[in-house]
């Protein structure tokens, strides 16, 4: 950077503040002696000096600096109160090469947006946060801020901030310093020239780190609010020195960016062919099986029910999958409510030629009951002539209804004989195939790679056997 020959309005500012309404497009809206303008200038100068104006995106907060976007010749967002770090997170993720600046005041950052700043810092988002701490809400007329000093009078602490009621001034640098991810945390002040120059160095460092994608930098700046504090600007500088600095000590709390690698974000895959490949389009089978003639059911409305862990849901899903392969319309709906977190479980499966209306089988024509309570609950919902397959291993009470067809299958027992009760689902599927005649056991077995994707060959083989055993049991006995 060449030696400066003139100190003038930095190019990081707009020539004319075009977004500012009214006629005064050549000056800021800030009160005389306000620290915001000083910090704005340091930022604008750094953006110019590092030649990063065009790739900088500034997030303006809610507070006195809500109109920061009037001034900076960058990309600009105005964010909801406290949310600039959340907005900045997404902006940074969307434009990983840009420099994202979240510019926030104490109410915005430390009160309403307290969690957002902590979490963005904790994620180590690649952004710079400038935190203007002037111990008061300026924009809304001088109310207490989280950083208001003990005893300090504001319009909402007319008798002075009382820690017993209002808590203590929040030290945000110290809070953030508990987190692992941030690379640069510092507190500076605008109360005299030496400290303004230190602030200038901090601003430049933070912006450089952002341009090098080092991660999260946090620069807290103690700043004058002459209007809010009801004193002139020079006196306000004194007040920072005498009152604020003892509570908010000036220091570099962390600076370890030099050893941090640049944060690289993935490049989105948008090419359609590539997308299809990643989503596995080529692995889905598009061909199916021929429907079997002589099927007794045009519509299956099945309820599968039992204990959680008996493979209730997977039985239903497997049947729906198989049905789909035969070209039927299918739906599967889990029991839906608190009971899904343990205890009994049930699901509804529909397999039919016509389009499916309600997915819940309120009047099933078939029930697979895996335990006694399920039998009691769902037997009575069956339509007349409906079919009840029940798990005779665990159910030793005969079903009470006489107007239904009953088919006891020792489902758990068969699975247990095969050496793994987890294959109960496939025993049920085999039994279903035999009862309805809708599915061929060999064709079901050919679907094992889909139904047990990612599982071992051994698991698939075991489940194939389970299908066959369930099928054979029904064929032999009914």
């Amino acid at each position, binding site marked *: 950077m060449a030696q400066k020959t003139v100190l003038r309005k930095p190019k990081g500012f707009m020539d004319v503040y075009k977004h500012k309404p009214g006629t005064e497009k050549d000056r800021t809206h800030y009160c005389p002696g306000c620290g915001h303008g000083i910090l*704005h200038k340091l930022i604008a100068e750094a953006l110019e000096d590092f030649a990063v104006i065009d790739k900088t995106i500034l997030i303006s907060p809610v507070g006195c600096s809500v109109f920061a976007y009037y001034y900076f010749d960058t990309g600009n967002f105005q964010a909801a109160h406290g949310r600039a770090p959340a907005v900045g997170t997404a902006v940074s993720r969307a434009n990983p090469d840009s420099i994202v600046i979240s510019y926030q005041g104490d109410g915005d950052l430390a009160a309403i947006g307290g969690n957002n700043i902590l979490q963005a810092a904790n994620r180590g988002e690649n952004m710079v946060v400038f935190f203007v701490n002037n111990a008061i809400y300026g924009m809304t007329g001088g109310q207490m801020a989280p950083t208001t000093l003990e005893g300090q009078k504001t319009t909402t602490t007319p008798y002075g901030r009382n820690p017993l009621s209002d808590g203590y001034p929040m030290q945000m640098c110290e809070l953030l310093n508990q987190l692992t991810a941030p690379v640069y945390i510092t507190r500076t002040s605008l109360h005299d020239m030496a400290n303004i120059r230190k602030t200038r160095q901090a601003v430049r460092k933070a912006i450089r780190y952002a341009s090098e994608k080092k991660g999260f930098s946090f620069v807290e700046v103690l700043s004058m609010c002459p209007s809010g504090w009801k004193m002139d600007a020079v006196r306000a500088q004194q007040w920072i020195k005498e009152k604020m600095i003892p509570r908010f000590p000036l220091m570099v709390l962390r600076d370890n960016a030099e050893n941090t690698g640049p944060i690289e974000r993935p490049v989105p895959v948008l090419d359609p062919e590539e997308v299809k490949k990643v989503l596995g389009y080529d692995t889905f089978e598009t061909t199916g099986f021929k429907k079997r003639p002589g099927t007794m059911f045009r519509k299956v409305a099945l309820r599968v029910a039992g204990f959680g862990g008996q493979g209730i849901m997977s039985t239903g899903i497997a049947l729906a999958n198989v049905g789909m392969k035969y070209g039927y319309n299918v739906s599967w709906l889990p029991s839906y409510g608190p009971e899904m977190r343990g205890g009994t479980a049930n699901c509804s499966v529909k397999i039919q030629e016509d389009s499916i209306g309600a997915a819940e089988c309120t009047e099933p024509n078939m029930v697979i009951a895996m335990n006694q309570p399920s039998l009691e609950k769902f037997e009575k919902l069956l339509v007349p002539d409906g079919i009840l397959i029940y798990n005779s291993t665990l159910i030793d009470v005969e079903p009470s209804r006489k107007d239904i067809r009953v088919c006891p299958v020792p489902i758990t027992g068969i699975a247990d004989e095969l050496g793994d009760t987890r294959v109960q689902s496939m025993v049920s599927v085999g039994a279903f195939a035999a009862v309805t005649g809708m599915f061929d056991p060999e064709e079901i077995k050919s679907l094992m790679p889909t139904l047990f994707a990612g599982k071992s060959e051994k698991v698939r083989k075991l489940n194939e056997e389970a299908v066959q055993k369930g099928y054979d049991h029904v064929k032999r006995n009914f």
Partner: protein
Amino acid sequence: MNKQWEYPYPEIDPDICKGCKLCVAACPKNVLVISSKLNSKGFHYSEYVGEGCIGCGNCFYVCPEPSAVTVYLRNYVEGEVS
């Protein structure tokens, strides 16, 4: 603006200045004063006494108003900035 004084010197836009006096307090040579005159906004603006500036830049960096203060440094070449 045309050159007004010997380099280095500060140029303060009397209309933009809000009269906060931060520059006056920050000037190590005490060569900035508050004018007895008011600008169009009713502020007593800051002005350079015309000599004694050493080009430290304090007034520029302490001024919260981006375009109120320009400081032409010792090595400034006329016409560099309009």
